[in-house]
């Protein structure tokens, strides 16, 4: 492996940036943001250099150091550098870099900008750690670090109670999933005796029944981790609330990278899952996709629509993994990172231009006021809807094809339905917010965002357009040993024609969604759906009451247990046990202090007594 030091540098640069900002430049906004931005951009450039030197599929893909070794447990700190992680490396540093630069414009008015960039760099470090980990233990550590940095960033405006609550909700929900993840890791370690991905894969390939009867359970426990991070049902509730964070954070963490970590982890450890576990995973993914798409139809907050759209797309990816298709899953993850980051940044630009207005019904007519945002946003919308030849079309089509290939017609139908809904809600957002006449004074006085914000939009838009046929799918395919041949650009361009039925259904769904949105929203002043759908619309608007259900069941039960524990702690542990010991210790301390009179004669006497005591003890017997 050439340039072995580079990945280490890439990994630790953002941590260094965090340390420097926190310790030295917290008072200087510009310097701090430049440090953070240069760390991630340098990471991107170095990643390109590394890939250029080693190629995507090098012979040796691991580099590691022994971190600690206690008894039989040898924990390495290592990096895995195959096509899967290298591609993720490019996404995290590339898309992340664009978002860092964008943040420089977006957060310019904020007085805690330095703190923001410190957190952002911490997040980048943790995310790179997940992507590059070569073993479960290290991945779990970074997994938790990502959770912490996400908590810090969601709660960045901690003066707002809603932001604080959202941060807590995200963190605790993630912890629930992580608990299962940790159990799964321990189970794998107990049964297979190693945590290294390479070793585990070798064991599982030679002996597929190595996990024995616990295979399904272990798989599902590990999936719990992905369920938390990638916000799958029933742990999906945190993602929409996480939009309380600054918009670049939503773009970076809650669209492009962190939520993708769950899918990435599933693909990385796919060899551990047996057919039953995959089945469960596929249906959970499909259900999440449908549920979130339905909710997105009746949201009015621009960021929440995008958040539920993210949930829905994550459901697609998880479903693809469950259908034994890591290639479509990672393909969709990659294209999704481009166009969803683009859409979030576009939404941020709109919010910025309208002075923190997020309700789409108070926008309208932004086409003329914000041309760059408008044009890039429509490219993102087309890509997300799956209109050919934009990137989303290719990745979504490969998921449809995978479902057909597995003869799972239920999930295929769900996927097509979700595609129609996706087009519908995205064009609803588009028609209402960007076309028509301005609905409010603010929308009338909207202004385009500065260059530092629009340039990242343009960069991301390019990839949202061409991402489908530049060889990304082929890279992943080679990684997962599925397709040997490499395709030319033109072949990739026409690749979807191999599954004509899937292609036709996908296109049909897009057209139906588009027409429905056009009829309903092209000239609408208010939302016509609540009147037509009645209770269903209200249920969609209120997110199918999941928060309320959780509040009434889990949270209440938890509060009850907590209050019992509190009583036990307060009266039995603190009162009886600690109180007595503490009181006794305190009393002894006070009594001993009495000997310390300050009187010299007493001291001398005590000294002499001490000598006598020692003499007696040593010689007296």
């Amino acid at each position, binding site marked *: 492996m050439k340039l072995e030091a580079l990945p280490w540098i890439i990994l630790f640069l953002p941590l260094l940036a965090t340390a420097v900002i926190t310790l030295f430049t917290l008072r200087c906004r510009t310097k701090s943001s430049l440090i953070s931005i240069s760390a991630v951009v340098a990471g991107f450039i170095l990643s390109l250099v590394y890939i250029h030197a080693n190629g995507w599929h090098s012979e040796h893909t691991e580099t590691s150091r022994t971190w600690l070794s206690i008894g039989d447990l040898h924990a390495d700190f290592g990096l895995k550098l195959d096509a899967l992680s290298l591609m993720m490396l490019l996404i995290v540093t590339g898309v992340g870099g664009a978002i860092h630069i964008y943040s420089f414009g977006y957060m310019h008015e904020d007085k805690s900008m330095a703190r923001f960039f410190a957190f952002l760099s911490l997040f980048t470090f943790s995310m790179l750690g997940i992507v590059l980990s070569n073993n479960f233990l290290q991945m779990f550590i970074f997994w938790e670090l990502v959770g912490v940095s996400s908590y810090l960033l969601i709660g960045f405006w901690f003066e707002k109670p809603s932001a604080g609550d959202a941060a807590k909700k995200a963190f605790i929900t993630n912890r629930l999933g992580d608990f299962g993840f940790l159990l799964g890791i321990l189970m794998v370690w107990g049964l297979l005796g190693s945590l290294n991905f390479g070793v585990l894969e070798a064991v599982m390939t030679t002996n597929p029944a190595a996990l024995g009867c616990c295979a399904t359970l272990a798989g599902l426990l590990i999936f719990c981790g992905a369920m938390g991070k990638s916000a799958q049902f029933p742990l999906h509730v945190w993602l929409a609330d996480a939009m309380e964070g600054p918009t670049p954070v939503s773009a970076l963490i809650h669209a492009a990278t962190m939520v993708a970590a769950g899918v990435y982890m599933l693909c990385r450890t796919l060899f551990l899952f047996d057919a039953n576990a995959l089945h469960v995973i596929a249906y959970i993914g499909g259900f999440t996709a449908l549920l979130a798409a339905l909710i997105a139809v009746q949201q009015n907050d621009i960021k929440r629509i995008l958040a539920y759209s993210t949930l829905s797309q994550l459901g697609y990816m998880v479903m693809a993994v469950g259908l034994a298709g890591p290639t479509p899953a990672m393909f969709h993850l990659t294209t999704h990172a481009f166009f969803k980051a683009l859409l979030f940044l576009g939404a941020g630009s709109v919010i910025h231009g309208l002075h923190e207005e997020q309700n789409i019904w108070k926008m309208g007519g932004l086409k003329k006021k914000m041309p760059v945002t408008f044009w890039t946003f429509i490219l993102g919308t087309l890509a997300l809807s799956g209109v050919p030849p934009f990137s989303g079309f290719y990745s979504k089509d490969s998921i449809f094809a995978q479902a057909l290939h597995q003869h799972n017609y239920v999930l295929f139908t769900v996927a097509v339905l979700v595609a129609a809904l996706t087009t519908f809600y995205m064009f609803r957002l588009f028609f209402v917010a960007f076309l028509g006449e301005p609905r409010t004074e603010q929308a009338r006085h909207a202004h385009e965002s500065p260059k530092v914000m629009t340039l990242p939009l343009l960069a991301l838009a390019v990839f949202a357009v061409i991402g489908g046929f530049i060889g990304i799918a082929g890279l992943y395919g080679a990684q997962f040993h599925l397709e040997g041949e490499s395709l030319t650009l033109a072949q990739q361009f026409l690749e979807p024609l191999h599954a004509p039925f899937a292609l036709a259904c996908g296109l049909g769904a897009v057209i139906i969604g588009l027409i429905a949105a056009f009829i309903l929203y092209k000239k609408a002043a208010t939302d016509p759906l609540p009147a037509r759908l009645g209770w269903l619309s209200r249920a969609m608007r209120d997110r199918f009451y999941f928060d309320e259900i959780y509040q009434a069941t889990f949270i209440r039960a938890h509060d009850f247990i907590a209050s019992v524990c509190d009583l036990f702690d307060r009266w039995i542990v603190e009162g009886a046990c600690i109180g007595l010991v503490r009181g006794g*210790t*305190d009393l*002894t*301390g*006070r009594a*001993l*202090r009495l*000997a*310390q009179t*300050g009187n*010299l004669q007493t*001291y*001398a006497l*005590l*000294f002499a*007594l*001490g*000598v006598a*005591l*020692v*003499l007696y*003890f*040593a*010689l007296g017997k």
Partner: protein
Amino acid sequence: MTLEVCVMALGVVLMLADFWLPADRKKFAGYAAVAALAGLLFLSFGGCGCCSLSGTAFNGMFVEDGLAVFFKRFFLIAAILVLFMAVEFSDRIAGGVSEYYSLIVFALSGMLFAASANDFTMLFVSIELITITFYILTSFQRGRLVSLEAGVKYLILGALSSSFLVFGIALVWGTTGKLNFNELAAVAAQFESNKIFLIGVLFILVGLGFKIAAFPFQIWAPDVYQGAPTPTTAFLAVGSKAAGFVLLLRVLFTAVPTVTAHWANLLIVISGITILYGNLCALPQRNLKRLLGYSSIAHAGYLLLGVAALSTSGQSALLYYLAGYLFTVCAAFTVICLVTRHLDNDDLSALAGLNRRSPLLAATMTLAMVSLAGIPPLAGFFGKFLLLKSVLEQGAANPGYYCLAFTALAGVVISFYYYFGVIRAIYWSKAAADVSPISLSGPIKVALWICIAGMFWLGLFPSKALNLATEAASVFAK
């Protein structure tokens, strides 16, 4: 020897410099001393003839071995950190600032001799050189009554302990006719049942026990720590205590190893009671320096764990712990020295709102307290771990060691309360009387960063320092 001569010369030069330096340049003398000592420390690592690794002088009275070299570096670092502190403190000393510096350097030379002492004469002379210098250093703030009171108390109790020490030496010489440690070791076995000889050795231990503030000779420590000028207190807590320990190690394990083997129980009891006494008395304490005084008694107890273990691993653990203790205590006293600049008292309340007045000082104090309490990843944790490990290793031979380890753990738990009380006073005090920011000079920042780096280095990368300590302790294995 070159090192000792250089340090002595430096002391004399500093004292003479007082005649020629203008009053406003006195600070400069302190920094010059720091630079000179840092140069000597550097040379001691470079092996430029300053410290050849083995050899004796004065007919075997003075020995230069691994242990001596370890402690000499230790004392040099301690003196450097204390001198940094002393420069900051100089505006609170009425007159003769250069004398204050030179006295610190003289005390240092006493410690260097103590590190090499291999003879009871040398032991006594070096101890007196240290102690007498400290009498003056303690009462140096002549305008403050508490400083004078502390000086007088230290003088009288010190004299009392010295009399025991010299009486003990006389008894040992009277019975055996030997003063050199190695010669004594050869004949000590014959005198194991001779009560006069044993009393002599015990009296010597009393004298050394006074130096390290072990129970039941700890009574002076809180009063003197509180009253003495802060740099003196720091030097007393680190340098003087370490000098006591190096001499204790030499006497117990070089001079009378056969006798020591019978006294395991005595050492266990002293160590256990010292730990409990220090920690319990510190609990209700509100005065910072007094609190650290009691805490230093408790730490003498922890260090005695390593002596009581009677093993090489115990001795090396002790050396390692001392190294961590050096940085931690210097950090704590430097912060106190800076915070109480314009205050009359050293109460905990002085720390209120320190995190807003100077984040660096607040962080340093917090780290110091956390390290003293023994929480990873700082030096104090790893030191305590090694000490307890060495004690538990001996548990199979004598169940008393298990009781001792348990006592030490109980002591650690108790100590959390008052150490975290200090941290609480920094960050969560209700009302801070004074919220003006504290400005730090460049050199003192360097000193603080050295302390912080030392605490982290010893806690995170223990292997290198542990190797040094083991090498030094191997002197006794022969």
